[in-house]
């Protein structure tokens, strides 16, 4: 992994949370994608990506989130994103309509509530 970004993961029961720290651009987006995919197995029900400590995210990162959302939806898995609001990245997400494609929440608790769904 290049030194631009690093991903810390933590588990909330069955749900992995990936905390993306640093910058995501074309140069490291592939590594970030692989790292995020590695947190998922066929039995995973959901993934939360926490962008609250991400300092840079451009269309390469936005594209990655869209693509990952599509992939997971196809496997009946849910993806949610945490992002501080207001923040430049929140504006970027609104601008690109990512918030229409998946839950984007200002706190981790809300995002976890979304992916666990009713009954959990």
């Amino acid at each position, binding site marked *: 992994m*290049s*030194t*631009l*970004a*690093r991903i810390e993961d933590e588990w909330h029961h069955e749900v992995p949370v990936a905390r993306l*720290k*640093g*910058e995501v*651009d*074309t*140069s490291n987006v592939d590594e970030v994608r692989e790292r995020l995919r590695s947190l998922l197995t066929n039995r995973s029900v959901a993934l939360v990506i926490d962008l609250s*400590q991400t*300092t*840079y995210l*451009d*269309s*390469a990162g*936005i*594209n*990655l989130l*869209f*693509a990952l959302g*599509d992939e997971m939806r196809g496997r009946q898995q849910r993806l949610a994103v945490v992002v501080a609001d207001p923040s*430049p990245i929140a*504006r*970027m997400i609104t*601008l*690109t309509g990512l918030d229409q494609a998946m839950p984007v929440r200002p706190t981790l608790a809300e995002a976890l509530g979304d992916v666990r769904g009713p009954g959990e």
Partner: protein
Amino acid sequence: METWEASTPAGLPTGAPQALADLQRVTDAALSHLSLNSLLAALLERIAEILHSDTAAFLLLDDSGDVLVARAAKGIEEEVEQGVRIPVGRGFAGRIAAERHPIYIPDVDHADVLNPLLRQKGIRSLLGVPLVASGRVVGVLHVGTLTPRVFTAADTELLQVAADRAALAIDHAQAYEHEREARERSERAVRVLESVQRVTDAALAYLSTDELLNVLLERMREILHADTAAILMLEHDGRMLRARAAKGIEEEVEQGVRLPVGRGFAGRIAAERHPIFIPDVDHSDVLNPLLREKGIRSLLGVPLLVEGRVIGVLHVGTLTPREFTDDDRNLLQLAADRAALAIDHAEIYEQRRLAAALQRSLLPQDLGEFPGLEVTARYMPAAVGTALGGDWYDLFPIGAGRIGIAVGDVVGRGLEAAALMAQLRTTLRAYAFDGHPPAEVVDRLNRMLAYLRPATMTTAAYLTLDPERHTLQVVSAGHPPPLVIAPDGTARYLPIKGGIALGVSRGSRYAAQEFDLPPGSTVVLFTDGVVEVRGEALDEGLERLRLLAEREHASVDVLCDSVIETMVADGRPADDVAVLAVHLVPLGDHVVTAWPAQAEALAGVRHLLRRWLRQQGAVDDEIYDITVACQEACANAVEHAYAPGKEAFEVEARKVGRTVEIVVRDRGQWRRARGTHRGRGMPMMEALMDSVHVQHTADGTAVILRRELAGDAPA
């Protein structure tokens, strides 16, 4: 006392013609051509005949001058055979030599004759005279009779003439003998000297160690007329010897012969640290089967010593039994000393080479490139001892265009210091990448050191530079303060409140101090070797460096080279020296930069643009939006520009009134991105900027982005 002591003869005998004839017989010139032994024998023969004596004998003084030794005898040959020795001053002959005049003994029974042979032989009367040459006594000539006999004065005179004749010949012979011995001694000395020269030959120093050992062994074999020669080296554990080089017994090296220290021929030389000579291998405890197989009969071996410590054994062997002289042994030891020195030097050189390679691998090979910064570092190990030092430095990106700069100095030298240095460097980097603020990085480093190596002290400084906000955060753990050269060329040390050195206390807490670093400034970090010069107060060293920095700051390379050159000019440094400089290049209002078509370049563009935008008065949201828009254009250029090399696309930034204009130019053809989740770049640019224009030209594509800054109200 019945002895008669004759008076010294007054002159030549006169009288009877017979006497003259007798005289001629003992002075006969023809005798001169005889060797000394033949001369003495002929003289004894003639004297006995002339004087009608039964015995005649020459005794000569030995080298000490205290003892007479029988040299030639007639009628009493046992004297010579038994090597009779008579002390000067005692007895018949002894008194003649001591008193330098003839003695006549009419009756041996009533005299103090010491020599038992004379009595055993039944000699009754004796006459003896001193042999005098060049005024000194060289011996005694005496005649004896088995019947009592009266010797006349004429007899005495004749005997004395014969004695003088003999003395002259003896003197000559001895002079010749001495000359010959002296010549032989000097010839031998020359031979030894030549051999020594062949062994100590300065030209050998230019050979590799293996070649040198081979030449030495070959020469030893020649000089000592030996059939085999071999060198065995002590292994590192000091318990075994291993064959290193051999002549005439090459199998020793080929088969990698190993022998235990303490037993056998070579093993005992190594253990006892002195030469061993084995006259006959058959009757000795030689362990090496090869020596026996080769049929070696005699062996001489010496230890290879370096500063009194055994590092190996050198031995020569012969296929026929032989003796070795002291000279041989000394010469072999000389060759061994020479070989030991060469091996030791080679090992030291090898260790230094390895150490230097290790050191290089422990320090950053390449500090990397940081747009808008000039960075460089120099490291020079101390002139003395092992090349491994504990000085270190590091420089790395820590995200958002900021860089971390570290410098440290582990107390001590050698492998341990270098290993600890490497651990500290890696640990500090890891904490920095984890995103900890600088003070926290150093706090953790301190706790890690206490865990890694308790009771080890080391100084370090960790700085983070934010080029965008031109600020410098400094955390010092007992390290000399950073030097900052301002844009106007004046240099000053940052007034830091230095924390305690790392490793002193587990509970130490460090604080970061923030300093403004105006564009055009240079930060200089160094280890104390730079400012601590023998016989100089620390303040003097700091001031010397400060003045040097004010003089020599044309570039960071010039600065660091000057620091090192000054250290070298003052004599090689006694301590390791590390120096690192970072220059914050000022950005103009109109900036044009060129970049390679690599995704890795994007971060550099982004960080430089952010710095420029902030300098132009843009606020955080504007900076972010404009940066993202520009990156979209750059990402496209990276994807489609086909010019290789470092300058594949160009980013130009300027401000017209309140409007920021960014132009991204490449030499490729603009294409709409394909794929489901591609193609968001263009809409994003359009959403983030006031205007986006794409111009296609014959040379390539230019994307022109414009946005008016809201907060940029004129003052």
